[in-house]
């Protein structure tokens, strides 16, 4: 066979099973686009490369398979950087293919030349610079294997223009890149874990993103129910147990409910699964769960003993570990512990605002939750709206919450929601955003209009960078430096400007009726929901403090 490098890339992506790619063409990736146009792969043209990166993330987070984004050299590649770094911190399998100037131009400060290899090095699982077409036959399958194996993550493939245009002769196509088999927990470690769990009086299961990524939510539930062990989750594991399940304590950490963080204080054993003890989850590490032993299971060996020393730990897959652990765990009602947790919850009930006030953000989110079916996908941006959504949205399924957890990237929501809707066209997708976040990738409304993806964007609009304003109120003497917007765009009109239906709950006499009509009509729309600007996210653990030192969220506060 004789093919150009560009043809090799496109054929290998097709063989890999890639159906949709997000990206933007430019000078140094035009040969790839030339080949792409005659392939069965659908290309979604975004309006900014960061949008392409997040759109691909939305697809990858829903399917669990590596998704592809593309950009040209120079600014195309630098615009992708944020989305790649975001995928690294949230362990999302992504293959980012960028064009690069020809080999003979590298190092010459050529037009649109930037050291993409150097720039992507610290924010990827691995990166490649492809100098010749023949290398693509190993690099492309290898990129998918690496992105999907073990702890998933992004792989950057920078392809010089000469590698795209030159022809290469070869005899057979390589096999598509598949994930390596996942590591199991050694038998002896499993037995020690089971013994420790069985003797624990006040254990808590601590679920991280690895539980959802490995498809372990059902096994987690089985272990929890067999031994009556309550479950807390990080932001990346929302929905690992359905909302309302009696053993589901919910989100822990900086904005976790009071009773959850207080329960952690009394635990004698924490079983952390697919979690990395992020500071937003555990607060001050030295004061985290002072009375508890730690069992730590994570597929990434370098996470073990990084923050919290585990008394028993294993570099293993969460699903394989839970499956092997289940028969070793003794049935136990743990009546005293569960009664104690119920008492803590009764003493520290979650505070809800007036459900009829549609300018209360939590009331709007709960209303959305009541209107949406269980299979709805919820994407958020980053800020107060993200934390309120994590606190009160009734997640019924694992993996239905798409959010930028580790990097905390404003602008994530809209393109990720479009990607999710394209990957799961039968499921409704809601993007809950804020008026700050939505403006960080608002140009993707054009992509939404073009794809007609079933995404409803709800903008909780408080005229501020709300979480910044909140921190300034609480920790910076109420000096609101640069956190208030003077220009307040009319988002409903803006939506119509892009050819999308736009609604405004603020100008309607019956906001509930408008919200219901908008959410239940198929197809995309934008809903502006003005909220009280002074509402804060409570409780809140001050940055650097212990999780027991929560501000707010108490009765009579």
């Amino acid at each position: 066979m004789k093919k150009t490098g560009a043809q090799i890339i496109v054929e290998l992506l097709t063989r890999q099973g890639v159906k949709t790619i997000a990206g933007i063409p430019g000078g140094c990736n035009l040969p790839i686009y030339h080949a792409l146009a005659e392939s069965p792969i659908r290309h979604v043209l975004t309006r900014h490369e960061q949008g392409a990166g997040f759109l691909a993330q939305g697809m990858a987070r829903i399917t669990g398979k590596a998704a592809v984004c593309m950009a040209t050299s120079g600014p195309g590649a630098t615009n992708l950087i944020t989305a790649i770094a975001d995928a690294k911190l949230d362990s999302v399998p992504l293959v980012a293919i960028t064009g690069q100037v020809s080999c003979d131009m590298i190092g010459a400060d050529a037009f649109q030349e930037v050291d993409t290899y150097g720039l992507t090095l610290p924010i990827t699982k691995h990166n490649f610079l492809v100098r010749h077409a023949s290398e693509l036959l190993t690099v492309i399958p290898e990129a998918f294997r690496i992105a999907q194996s073990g702890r998933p993550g992004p792989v950057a493939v920078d392809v010089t223009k000469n590698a795209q245009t030159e022809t290469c002769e070869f005899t057979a196509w390589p096999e598509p890149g598949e994930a390596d088999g996942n590591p199991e927990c050694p038998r002896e470690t499993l037995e020690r874990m089971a013994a420790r769990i069985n003797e624990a009086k006040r254990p808590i299961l601590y679920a991280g993103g690895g539980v959802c990524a490995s498809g372990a939510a059902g096994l987690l539930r089985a272990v929890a129910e067999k031994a009556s062990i309550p479950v807390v989750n990080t932001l990346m594991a929302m929905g690992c147990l359905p909302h309302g399940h009696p053993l589901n304590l919910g989100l822990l950490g900086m904005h976790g409910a009071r009773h959850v963080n207080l329960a952690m204080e009394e635990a004698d054993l924490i079983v952390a699964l697919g979690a990395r003890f992020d500071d937003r989850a555990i607060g001050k590490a030295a004061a985290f769960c002072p009375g508890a032993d730690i069992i730590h299971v994570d597929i990434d060996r370098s996470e073990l003993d990084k923050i919290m020393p585990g008394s028993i730990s294993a570099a293993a897959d969460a699903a394989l570990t839970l499956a092997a652990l289940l028969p070793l765990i003794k049935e136990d009602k743990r009546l005293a512990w569960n009664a104690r947790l119920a008492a803590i919850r009764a003493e520290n009930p979650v505070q809800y605002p007036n459900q009829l006030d549609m300018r209360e953000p939590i009331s709007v989110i709960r209303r959305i939750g009541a209107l949406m079916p269980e299979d709805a996908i919820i994407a958020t941006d980053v800020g107060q709206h993200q934390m309120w959504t994590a606190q009160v949205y009734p997640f019924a399924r694992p993996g239905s919450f798409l959010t930028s957890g580790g990097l905390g990237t404003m602008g994530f929501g809209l393109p990720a929601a479009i990607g999710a809707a394209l990957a799961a066209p039968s499921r409704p997708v809601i993007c809950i955003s804020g008026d700050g976040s939505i403006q960080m990738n608002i140009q993707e409304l054009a992509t939404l209009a073009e794809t007609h993806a079933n995404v409803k964007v709800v903008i909780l609009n408080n005229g501020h960078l709300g979480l910044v304003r909140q921190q300034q109120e609480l920790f910076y003497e109420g000096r609101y430096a640069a956190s208030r917007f003077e220009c307040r765009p009319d988002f409903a009109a803006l939506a119509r400007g892009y050819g999308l239906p736009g609604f405004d709950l603020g100008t309607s006499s019956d906001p509930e009726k408008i919200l219901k009509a908008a959410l239940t009509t198929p197809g995309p729309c934008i809903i502006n929901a003005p909220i009280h600007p002074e509402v804060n996210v409570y409780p809140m653990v001050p940055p650097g403090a212990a999780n027991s030192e929560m501000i707010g969220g108490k009765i009579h506060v």
Partner: protein
Amino acid sequence: MSETVIELTVRNHPGVMSHITGLFARRAYNLEGILCGALPGGEHSRMYLLVTADQRLGLVMRNLEKLYDVLDVRLRDDCDGSAFAHLDELVAASSRRAA
């Protein structure tokens, strides 16, 4: 704090050194010395890293093991850094020339 030597076998290509040094920079772990040379055949290289053996050594080793281009990681606690002695002499000679 005692010094120790990490021995790496790596793929020999431009960029591998950035991966190694980048890891140390990102994790704020100081690299006291580097010796590197191609192994026979030229496909692989051997690197010796002189580091301070503090409590983060294990974490750094586990992160090195994750690097795609790193094929083998060993702690050479039988080395005391004397392999770097000639490096010291070179540094001293440079200082004398500068003075």
